[in-house]
């Protein structure tokens, strides 16, 4: 019998929590069977919902003593099956640790528990004209603990950075219940940069119970320009030209024809439909600087061959321009029963080549693709359309997606820009990293969690898995035994 089902363990676990904070009946645990990547499901054996740091540490110590694995979950909005339950593991849900403990407007920091929603921080800071910069599109629901675990980005990364650039300090606990105070209230801390190491570590190293985030002054003004192009390559070149002109836009987004059409049908943002690509370029900052930058952006876009340029002249119009982009995923979701969202990053100069290859593969695999692109920082989100009810289509979409990620690595990019590896991209890690590099990753984990109890099987592939994947890979992407689940 696995340790998690032993009466001794369960009794001890029960003694730590209120009855409603421990779920074991399948009808109660099933809602936790997947995160935001619903194609991967596994009903957890045990779900715990602690409401204090003391409970978290007691749970970790107990699991360590019984050698029971722990999968940590925040709001469950992750897109890489990072919080997918693992057989024999406790699912540790931190959503109830949701207190904003302190906002210090003069020092521009907020101390928050991991279950606090990303947007809730900015809402609470708004009274001081401050905000928390990283804004993943799930910001209304996703929690800061998960943002740290995934090093989440958003549309404003190029100018304002990722989560790693916007946090100062963590309280985290090792699986054996030792407190790690990482970072400081100053701008650096002595020793190795464990704050960077923890950020994006996907719940593999320690469990976070408190985050100190930086807050920024809200920009005086933000303005957005929309430009249409008759060729995606021209739109891609325009992105580089804006940056070469010395402007760092707050947001710089691109959509291709299919994504534009879908967004327009869905929210009627007024996008031009007779084009191959549109760019949305937002600049923010001091009033005078925004005026200058808008002028520059306008000139560069015209010189780069834009067929149409519109500048939002009111806040209402700015929000309307963005509405189409922000609704792009659900809009594309209306085109097919299912879609599969990829997350590769590429050097921007490779964009025309990569888009061309994606459209070739789209024909090869018989699945349509809509492209939404954080153009400023090279983060590509191809949305592969498929129908999971058609036999083999999910598998076909996954294989196609895997190929796109390998293409990203081939052109000097990465398999994941902001969603994380989780379980979803674990095979593609073998394409990006060599055996010695993967070995170092395992050793980093072992430095924190020698028994491998935190989120086992995620983020870093076992070496034998890469060997098997390499062998399978030679056969033109056709996995043997496709009917078997891949995890």
């Amino acid at each position, binding site marked *: 019998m696995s340790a998690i089902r032993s009466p001794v363990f369960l009794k001890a676990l029960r003694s730590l929590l209120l009855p409603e904070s421990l779920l074991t009946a399948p009808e109660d645990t099933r809602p936790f069977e997947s995160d935001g990547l619903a194609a991967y499901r596994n009903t957890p054996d045990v779900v715990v919902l602690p409401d204090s740091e003391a409970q978290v540490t007691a749970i970790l110590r107990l699991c360590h003593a019984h050698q029971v694995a722990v999968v940590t979950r925040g709001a469950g909005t992750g897109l890489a099956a990072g919080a997918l339950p693992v057989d024999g593991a406790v699912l540790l849900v931190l959503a109830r640790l949701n207190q904003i403990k302190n906002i210090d407007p003069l020092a521009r920091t907020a101390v928050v528990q991991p279950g606090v929603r990303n947007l809730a921080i900015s809402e609470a800071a708004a009274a001081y004209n401050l905000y928390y910069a990283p804004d993943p599109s799930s910001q209304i629901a996703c929690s800061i603990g998960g943002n740290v675990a995934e090093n989440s980005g958003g549309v404003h990364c190029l100018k304002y950075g990722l989560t790693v650039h916007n946090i100062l300090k963590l309280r985290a606990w090792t699986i054996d219940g030792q407190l790690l105070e990482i970072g400081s209230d100053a701008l650096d801390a002595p020793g190795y940069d464990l704050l960077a*190491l923890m950020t994006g570590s996907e719940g593999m190293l320690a469990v976070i119970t408190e985050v100190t985030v930086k807050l920024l002054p809200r920009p005086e003004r933000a303005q957005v320009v929309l430009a249409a192009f008759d060729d995606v390559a021209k739109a891609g070149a325009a992105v580089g030209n804006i940056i070469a002109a010395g402007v760092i836009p707050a947001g710089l987004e691109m959509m291709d024809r299919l994504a534009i059409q879908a967004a327009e049908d869905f929210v009627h943002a007024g996008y031009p439909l007779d084009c191959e690509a549109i760019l949305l370029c937002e600049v923010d900052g001091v009033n005078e600087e925004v005026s200058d930058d808008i002028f520059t952006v306008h000139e560069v876009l015209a010189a780069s061959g834009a067929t149409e340029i519109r500048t939002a002249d009111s806040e209402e119009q700015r929000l309307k321009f963005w509405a189409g982009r922000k609704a792009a995923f659900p809009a594309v979701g209306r085109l097919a029963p299912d879609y599969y969202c990829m997350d590769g990053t590429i050097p921007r100069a490779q964009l025309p080549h990569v888009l061309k290859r994606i459209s070739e593969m789209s024909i090869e695999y018989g699945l349509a693709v809509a492209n939404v692109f954080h153009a400023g920082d090279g983060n590509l989100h191809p949305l592969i359309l498929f129908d999971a009810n058609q036999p083999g289509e999910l598998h076909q979409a996954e294989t196609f997606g895997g190929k796109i990620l390998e293409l990203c690595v081939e052109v000097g990019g990465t398999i994941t820009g902001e969603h994380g590896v989780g379980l979803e991209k674990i095979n593609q890690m073998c394409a990006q990293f060599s055996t010695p590099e993967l070995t170092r990753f395992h050793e980093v984990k072992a430095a924190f969690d020698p028994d491998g109890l935190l989120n086992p099987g995620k983020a870093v592939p076992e070496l034998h898995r890469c060997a098997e994947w390499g062998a399978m890979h030679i056969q033109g992407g056709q996995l043997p035994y496709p009917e078997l689940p891949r995890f």
Partner: protein
Amino acid sequence: MLNTLIARIRAAHADNTPLIIQGGGSKTFYGNADEGEILATRTLNSVVDYQPKELVLTAQSGTPLADIEALLAEHKQMLAFEPPHFGGAATLGGSIAAGLSGPRRPYAGSARDFVLGVRMVDGTGQALRFGGQVIKNVAGYDVSRLMVGALGTLGLITEVSLKVLPSPGAETTLQFELDEAAAIVKMNTWAGQPLPLSATSWHAGLLSVRLSGAHSAVHAAQAKLGGETVNDASAFWQRLRDQTTPFFDKRPSTWNQRLWRLAVKPTTPPLKLGDAQWIEWGGAVRWLISDLSETTLREAAQRYGGHATLFRGNAPIDGAFTPLAPALLTLHRNLKQRFDPKGIFNHGRLYPDF
């Protein structure tokens, strides 16, 4: 050349020879004294790739910072963390290994914030690559940023990819006569407003504030803030960055006076630890020339959420950095053991026992 270095590291690993990694030798004073054969990175001195439109530069670790900054300047770009040169010979690898940043740091980010990827050789002579040349990358643990500030104890950095930024179109520095307490409040208040701040400093009753950005933005902010415009301001900030002002020279004259760097929460009120003080980073760094005890200074910094570093002494240093809590020290030892199992790289430079 890389192969020669790898062969040397493998030999050192085989026969337990301690090595001291050295680029330009401009920061030999920094950290604890260490002993070993010099492993020079000067042969690794070329810019591998620079795409101004991508905002990414990749260079070998022994490339002089001055060369990199000159190349960036041709394209009106810069290293936004404004790394110190300390005498001029500083290299990229040394800057990243030391993890030191200059006056722009609180407003633009630190050395580690701009690192996108590294190539390195670990203590067994294995060449490894982490991160990459793209701005967003969350595949695998962030080992490239772990190398920043590790003072070479986890491996030899051979190549670094950095995000670079456009240089500001305009820059001006304003000065205000203010006492210490008022200056600290001002620096923090202004940082909470949408102003184009790029550096702050307070010393001897004078607050200096640098504004950088579009001409229009700088002029608007100047009109709002007032103060006296400083002539030759870029020399002022460069002297502060490289510690060549007379303040930092005062130290050698008296044997017991040492230069301490107290990193604290930026809103920390005046520390009252003596008059020989220079504040920068919006209040988050307090440089002290002091003969007070290590314990006194470390306790003061810790009381305000930070830490104290013995930055320059007059004799070999054996306790430069604030000691780590036991759980963190264990993690440090574990990581060192994995990356450099025989402890051949810069032994003791960061902490005495590894």
